[in-house]
C-alpha cells in the first residue's frame, strides 16, 4: 500500500513537471506553427531548412521530456515500456494496417479543438478512478498534450500512406510536407512536427484509435486462434499506445477487473449452488441412474415413490408431533387407568414377540393406537386439548392429502400445456445432449446410456406418430379387447360373490397377466397401453372390493369375524374391517350391558354399608368393552405389514432369485436361460404403481385409528426405495420398447385421487354416524366424534362466537354458500376450458407459421438456384467471347485466394460476419463480372473469393 502511494506521489510530481514542459512546448509549437504558415504562404524554401534546424533543437528538448515520461511509465508498468520500445520496430507493418483503416474514413466531420478537449476529458474520466478527481485537470492537460504529440507522429504516418495510395483528396500543401516527412523518416526518431494539424485529420486519427480500442475489447470474443489474436492484439495495442500514450491503465481498469472477477465468482457460485441443490434432492442421483438405463417410464415410478414419501413425511410429522408425542409426554402414564393397561387375562403373553408382531399386548395398549388416548379435555401443563387435536389432525391429514394431490395435478396439467416445443427435438438431442462437464468415466457411461435411451424413446415416438395401418382392424381389435376385459371383470365379480373369498387374491394375481395378453391385441403406443393396463387393474381391484363388500353385507348378520380375518385380502382392507366393527357393535352392546349390570351390583352391595370406602380395583382387572377403533387400527397395521412383506419377498424371489438362477444355471442347462423362457424380469411399472396407490389408500383409511400408520409407511417407503433401486439395477432388464413417460404422471395422480376419495368415505362415515366406544379413545363418553368441536366452541370460545357459528351453520346460509361455490367452480372451469382452446389454437397457428416460413425458405433457395443457373449460362456465353480476360480474372482470383488463406492462417473458414456475404452471393453475381470458368453454383467459397476479387480488379 505504501509503495503504491509513493508511486502515485512520484507520478503526480512528474505530472506537474510534464505539464510545465508541455506548456512550454505548446507555446513553442504554436509559435512555430504560425511562423510556418506564414512561410508557406510566401513559399520560401530556404526558410524551411532553417526551420528544420530549429525544430530539431526543439525536438531534443522534447526527447528529454520523453525520457521523463518513460521513467514515469516504468514506475507504473513495465510492459508499457516494452511496447513503447518495440513501437519503432513494428511501425512499418502497422502503418500498412492503419492506412487501410484510414482510407475508408470520410473527411466530413470537422470538429474544433474544444470538442476534442472535452472528449479526451471524458475518456480520461472513464478510464481513471473517481478518487483521482483532484488530479484530473492536470492529467487531462498532460494527456491532451500527449495526444497532440502522438497525433502528430501519426500525422506523419498518414502522409506516408498518402504517398502510397496517392489519394486525390490531398492538397498540394500536404504533398510538399511529405518531402519533409521523408527526410525525417530517415532519422527514425520519435519526433513530432510542430506544424498544426487540420481538424479532420485529427478526427480521423481519433476514430482510428477508437476503432483499435474497440477491436481490443472485442478481441476476446472473436473466433480466431490464439496466435492471430495475439498478433492483432499487439498491432492494435501498439497503435493505441502510440497515439494515446499511457491511456487507460489507471484505476478504472481495476474496477473493471474487479467487476469481472465478481461476475465470474458469482457465476461459479450459482453453478455450485445448483449442483448443491440437486444433491439435496433425495435419491436424485439414483433415479437419474435408473432413468439412464431403463428409460423415463421406470424412472417415473421412482419419482412417484419419492413424491409419496414426501407426502407421508408430512402426514407423519402431523400425527407424530401433534398426537403421539404430546400424549406420550403429558398424558397419563401407562397403567394409570384401565384403557392404558393390559388386561389381566393377556398379561402373561403381552410381551411375547408373536403377540407384539401382531400388534397385540403392550403394543396394543400404547400411543400407537386409538384406544390408548384418554378423553381428558386438556392434558399437561400446556393444557393441550388432546381430543380436539386428535380430531383435527385426523381431518387435517385427509384435507392436506386432497390439497396436495389436486395441486400437483393442476401443476402437472399446466406443465404439459406449455413448453413442449418440439420443433427441433432431434437436433437438440443430437447437439446439446452431451454434458461437457462430465469428467468421470462412470458418469460418462451413464450419460451414454441415457442418451441412447432418449434417442430410442424419440425414435419410438416418431414411428408411432407415423404409423397408420388398417384403422378398422385396430378399432375392431380394441373393441374386442375391451369386451374381453369386461368379461373378465364380470367373471371375477361373479366368482367373488358366489364362491370362496380366497379367490380374490388369486384373481388379483392372474387377471393382470390376462389383461397384458389382451392389450397386445390393441396395438396401442406403449405409454397409452400402460395407462389402459393400469386402469383395468384398478377397475378390477375396485370392482372386486365392491362385490366383496356387497357379499359381506349379505352375511353381516352372521358373526364371521374369525373367518373374515383369515381371508383378508391385502387389497380389501377398509371395507372388511368396517364390516368387522359393525359386527362388533353387537358384541359391544352385550359387553356394555354386562359391565353396567356388574357395576350396579357392585355399587349396590357397597352402598348398603355406607361406611365402607369404595374398593379400589386394579385397572388391569376392570372389565372393558371391545374398543372397535383399536381393532380397526390393528387390522390396518397388520395389513400394511403383510403387504410390505409380500412386496419384499416377491421382489427377492421373483426378481433376485430368478436373476441369480438364470445367471448361474445358464452354464449347465440344456437351453439358453437368459434368452429363452425364464430370462430376466422386466420392471413391472403398472403393478408397482398400483401397489403403491392401494397402500397409500390403506394409510389414509387407517391413520385415524392408528396414528402410527404414517410412520410405518414412511419406513416402508424408505426401505422399498433402496431395495427397489437396487433390485432394478441388479436383476431387471430394460423393457424391450423403451418409451417416454409423459412428463407429468397425472394418470397416477388421478388414480390416487380416486383412492383417496374412496378411502375417506368410510372414515367420514364412521366419524359422522357411529358413536365412539364408551371406555377407550379420546372421544369416549361422547355421542359422536365431532362433538369435540361443539364442546370446544362452547367452552373455549366466547358466547357470541358460538352463536355466530350456529347461525352460520344454519342451512339457510350454508345452502346459498354451496350454490355460490358451485357457480364459481362452473365459471372457473369454463374459463379454463376457453384458455385451453385458445392455447391449442395459438399452437396451431405457430406451427402453421413455422411451416410457411420453411416453405418460403425453400422457395427462396430454389429461386437462388435458378438465378445461379442463369448466371452460369451467361458466364459460359461470355467465356466464349473473351477467354483471355477470364484467364486474367482467374489468376487474380487464385492469388487473392492464396492471400486470403495466408492471412487467415490455419483458419480457412471466415469469421461469422462473412457468412452474410456468402449468402448474398447469388444476387451480387449479376452485378459483378462473370465468374471463372470452373465456377459451380452452390459453392459459396468461390463466390466469396470473387467478392474479394472485385476491388482488386478495380485497383489494377
Amino acid at each position: 500500500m505504501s509503495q503504491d502511494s509513493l508511486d502515485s506521489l512520484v507520478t503526480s510530481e512528474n505530472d506537474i513537471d510534464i505539464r510545465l514542459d508541455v506548456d512550454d512546448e505548446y507555446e513553442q509549437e504554436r509559435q512555430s506553427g504560425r511562423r510556418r504558415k506564414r512561410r508557406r504562404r510566401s513559399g520560401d524554401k530556404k526558410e524551411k531548412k532553417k526551420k528544420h534546424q530549429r525544430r530539431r533543437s526543439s525536438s531534443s528538448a522534447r526527447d528529454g521530456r520523453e525520457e521523463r515520461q518513460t521513467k514515469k511509465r516504468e514506475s507504473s508498468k513495465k510492459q508499457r515500456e516494452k511496447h513503447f520500445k518495440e513501437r519503432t520496430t513494428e511501425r512499418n507493418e502497422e502503418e500498412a494496417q492503419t492506412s487501410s483503416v484510414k482510407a475508408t474514413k470520410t473527411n466530413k466531420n470537422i470538429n474544433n479543438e474544444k470538442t476534442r478537449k472535452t472528449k479526451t476529458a471524458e475518456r480520461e474520466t472513464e478510464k481513471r478512478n473517481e478518487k483521482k478527481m483532484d488530479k484530473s485537470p492536470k492529467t487531462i492537460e498532460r494527456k491532451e498534450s500527449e495526444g497532440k504529440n502522438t497525433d502528430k507522429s501519426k500525422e506523419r504516418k498518414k502522409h506516408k500512406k498518402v504517398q502510397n495510395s496517392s489519394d486525390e483528396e490531398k492538397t498540394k500543401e500536404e504533398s510538399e510536407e511529405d518531402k519533409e516527412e521523408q527526410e525525417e523518416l530517415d532519422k527514425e526518431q520519435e519526433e513530432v512536427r510542430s506544424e498544426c494539424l487540420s481538424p479532420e485529420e485529427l478526427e480521423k486519427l481519433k476514430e482510428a484509435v477508437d476503432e483499435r480500442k474497440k477491436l481490443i475489447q472485442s478481441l476476446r470474443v472473436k473466433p480466431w486462434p490464439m496466435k492471430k489474436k495475439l498478433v492483432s492484439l499487439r498491432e492494435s495495442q501498439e497503435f493505441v499506445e502510440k497515439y494515446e500514450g499511457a491511456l487507460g491503465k489507471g484505476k478504472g481498469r481495476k474496477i473493471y477487473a474487479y467487476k469481472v472477477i465478481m461476475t465470474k465468482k458469482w457465476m461459479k457460485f450459482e453453478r455450485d449452488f445448483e449442483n448443491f441443490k440437486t444433491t439435496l434432492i433425495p435419491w436424485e442421483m439414483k433415479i437419474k441412474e435408473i432413468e439412464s438405463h431403463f428409460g423415463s417410464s421406470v424412472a417415473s415410478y421412482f419419482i412417484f415413490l419419492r413424491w409419496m414419501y414426501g407426502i407421508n413425511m408430512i402426514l407423519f410429522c402431523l400425527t407424530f408431533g401433534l398426537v403421539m408425542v404430546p400424549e406420550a409426554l403429558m398424558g397419563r402414564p401407562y397403567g394409570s387407568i384401565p384403557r392404558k393397561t393390559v388386561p389381566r387375562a393377556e398379561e402373561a403373553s403381552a410381551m411375547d414377540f408373536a403377540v407384539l408382531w401382531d400388534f397385540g399386548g403392550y403394543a396394543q395398549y400404547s400411543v400407537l393406537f386409538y384406544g390408548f388416548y384418554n378423553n381428558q379435555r386438556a392434558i399437561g401443563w400446556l393444557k393441550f386439548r388432546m381430543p380436539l387435536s386428535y380430531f383435527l389432525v385426523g381431518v387435517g391429514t385427509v384435507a392436506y392429502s386432497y390439497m396436495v394431490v389436486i395441486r400437483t395435478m393442476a401443476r402437472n396439467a399446466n406443465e404439459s400445456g406449455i413448453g413442449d416445443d418440439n420443433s427441433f427435438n432431434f437436433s437438440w438431442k443430437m447437439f446439446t445432449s452431451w454434458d461437457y462437464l462430465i469428467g468421470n468415466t462412470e458418469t460418462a457411461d451413464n450419460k451414454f446410456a441415457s442418451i441412447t435411451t432418449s434417442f430410442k424413446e424419440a425414435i419410438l415416438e416418431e414411428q408411432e406418430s407415423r404409423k397408420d395401418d388398417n384403422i378398422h382392424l385396430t378399432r375392431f381389435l380394441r373393441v374386442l379387447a375391451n369386451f374381453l376385459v369386461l368379461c373378465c371383470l364380470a367373471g371375477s365379480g361373479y366368482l367373488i360373490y358366489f364362491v370362496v373369498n380366497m379367490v380374490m387374491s388369486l384373481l388379483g394375481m392372474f387377471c393382470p397377466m390376462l389383461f397384458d395378453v389382451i392389450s397386445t391385441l390393441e396395438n396401442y403406443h406403449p405409454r397409452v397401453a400402460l395407462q389402459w393396463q393400469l386402469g383395468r387393474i384398478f377397475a378390477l381391484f375396485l370392482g372386486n372390493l365392491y362385490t366383496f363388500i356387497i357379499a359381506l353385507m349379505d352375511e353381516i348378520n352372521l358373526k364371521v369375524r374369525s373367518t373374515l380375518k383369515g381371508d383378508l385380502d391385502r387389497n380389501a382392507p377398509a371395507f372388511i374391517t368396517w364390516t368387522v366393527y359393525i359386527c362388533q357393535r353387537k358384541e359391544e352392546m352385550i359387553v356394555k350391558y354386562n359391565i353396567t349390570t356388574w357395576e350396579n351390583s357392585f355399587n349396590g352391595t357397597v352402598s348398603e354399608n355406607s361406611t365402607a370406602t369404595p374398593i379400589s380395583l386394579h385397572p388391569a382387572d376392570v372389565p372393558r368393552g371391545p374398543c372397535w377403533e383399536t381393532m380397526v387400527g390393528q387390522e390396518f397395521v397388520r395389513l400394511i405389514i403383510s403387504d410390505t412383506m409380500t412386496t419384499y419377498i416377491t421382489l427377492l424371489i421373483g426378481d433376485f432369485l430368478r436373476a441369480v438362477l438364470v445367471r448361474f444355471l445358464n452354464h449347465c442347462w440344456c437351453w439358453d436361460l437368459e434368452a429363452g423362457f425364464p430370462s430376466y424380469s422386466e420392471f413391472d411399472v403398472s403393478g408397482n404403481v398400483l401397489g403403491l396407490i392401494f397402500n397409500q389408500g390403506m394409510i389414509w383409511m387407517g391413520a385415524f385409528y392408528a396414528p402410527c400408520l404414517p410412520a410405518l409407511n414412511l419406513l416402508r417407503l424408505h426401505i422399498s426405495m433402496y431395495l427397489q433401486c437396487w433390485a432394478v439395477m441388479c436383476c431387471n432388464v430394460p423393457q424391450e420398447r423403451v418409451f417416454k413417460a409423459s412428463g407429468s404422471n397425472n394418470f397416477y395422480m388421478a388414480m390416487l385421487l380416486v383412492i383417496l376419495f374412496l378411502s375417506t368415505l368410510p372414515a367420514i362415515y364412521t366419524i359422522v354416524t357411529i358413536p365412539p366406544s364408551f371406555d377407550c379413545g379420546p372421544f369416549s363418553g361422547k355421542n359422536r366424534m365431532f362433538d369435540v368441536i361443539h364442546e370446544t366452541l362452547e367452552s373455549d370460545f366466547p358466547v357470541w362466537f358460538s352463536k355466530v357459528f350456529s347461525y352460520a351453520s344454519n342451512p339457510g346460509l350454508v345452502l346459498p354458500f354451496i350454490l355460490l361455490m358451485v357457480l364459481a367452480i362452473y365459471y372457473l372451469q369454463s374459463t379454463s376450458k376457453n384458455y385451453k382452446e385458445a392455447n391449442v389454437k395459438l399452437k396451431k397457428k405457430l406451427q402453421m407459421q413455422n411451416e410457411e416460413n420453411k416453405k418460403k425458405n425453400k422457395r427462396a433457395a430454389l429461386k437462388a438456384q435458378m438465378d445461379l443457373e442463369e448466371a452460369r449460362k451467361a458466364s459460359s456465353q461470355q467465356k466464349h467471347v473473351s477467354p483471355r480476360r477470364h484467364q486474367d480474372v482467374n489468376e487474380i482470383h487464385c492469388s487473392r485466394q492464396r492471400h486470403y488463406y495466408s492471412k487467415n492462417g490455419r483458419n480457412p473458414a471466415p469469421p461469422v460476419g462473412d457468412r452474410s456475404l456468402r449468402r448474398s452471393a447469388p444476387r451480387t453475381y449479376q452485378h459483378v463480372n462473370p465468374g471463372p470458368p470452373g465456377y459451380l453454383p452452390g459453392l459459396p467459397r468461390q463466390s466469396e473469393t470473387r467478392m474479394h476479387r472485385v476491388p482488386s480488379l478495380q485497383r489494377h
Partner: protein
Amino acid sequence: MGNKQTIFTAEQLDAYQVGSLCFVINTSSLFILIQKLFYRYRDLAPQLVPLDYTNHPDVKLPYELIGSMPELKDNPFRQRIAEVFSEDGEGNMTLDDFLDMFSVLSEMAPRDLKAYYAFKIYDFNSDDFICKSDLEKTLNKLTRNELTDDEVRMVCEKVIDEADLDNDGRLSLEDFQHMIVRAPEFLSRRKPNNITYILIWF
C-alpha cells in the same frame, strides 16, 4: 515471484490476458491463472515443455497427451475438440492453442462464440457444413454405436428435416445457430453445461 518473470515476459502475459476469456484482467490473479494453466500444460509432458517461454519456443504436445486430460478424457468429441483448436488440425497443441481452447470452453465465453465452435466441432470433415456423414459420426459417438443403421439414418434425416432452413440437405452455420439458440438448454440459465462448457479444473 521469480517464476512468472522467467516463464513469460510481461508483454506476453498482457497479451494473453486480453486475448483470452478465462483470464481476469486483474494482474495478480492473471499471473496465477496463466501459471496454473501453464503448469497444467506442462504437467502433460514435463520433458517436452521448457520452463522458459520468453523466447517463444516451438513446442507441441501430441493429441494423445491432450486427450488424456481429465477434462477431456470422457468426452466423445475430444479428438474433434483438439483438432479444432490445434493449429495443425491434427490435435497437436501449442501452448497458445491450449490457452485458446480453455478460453473458449470456459464459462466466460459468450454463447455466440460457443455456438460457432460447437459447429466446428460437429463439422467432422471441416467443409463448413454439417452434412449427413457428420451427423452420423456425431450420433455414433454419442450413443457408442448402439443404434441400428436404420435408426441412425432416421435420426439424421429428422435432424436435417428439422434444422435445414435453406433446404440444401446439410446444415450451414446459420442453420445451426438458428437451431441451437432455441434449445432449452441455451435459453435457460440453469443448465448451461450442454453446449461446450468445460470448467477449468485446478
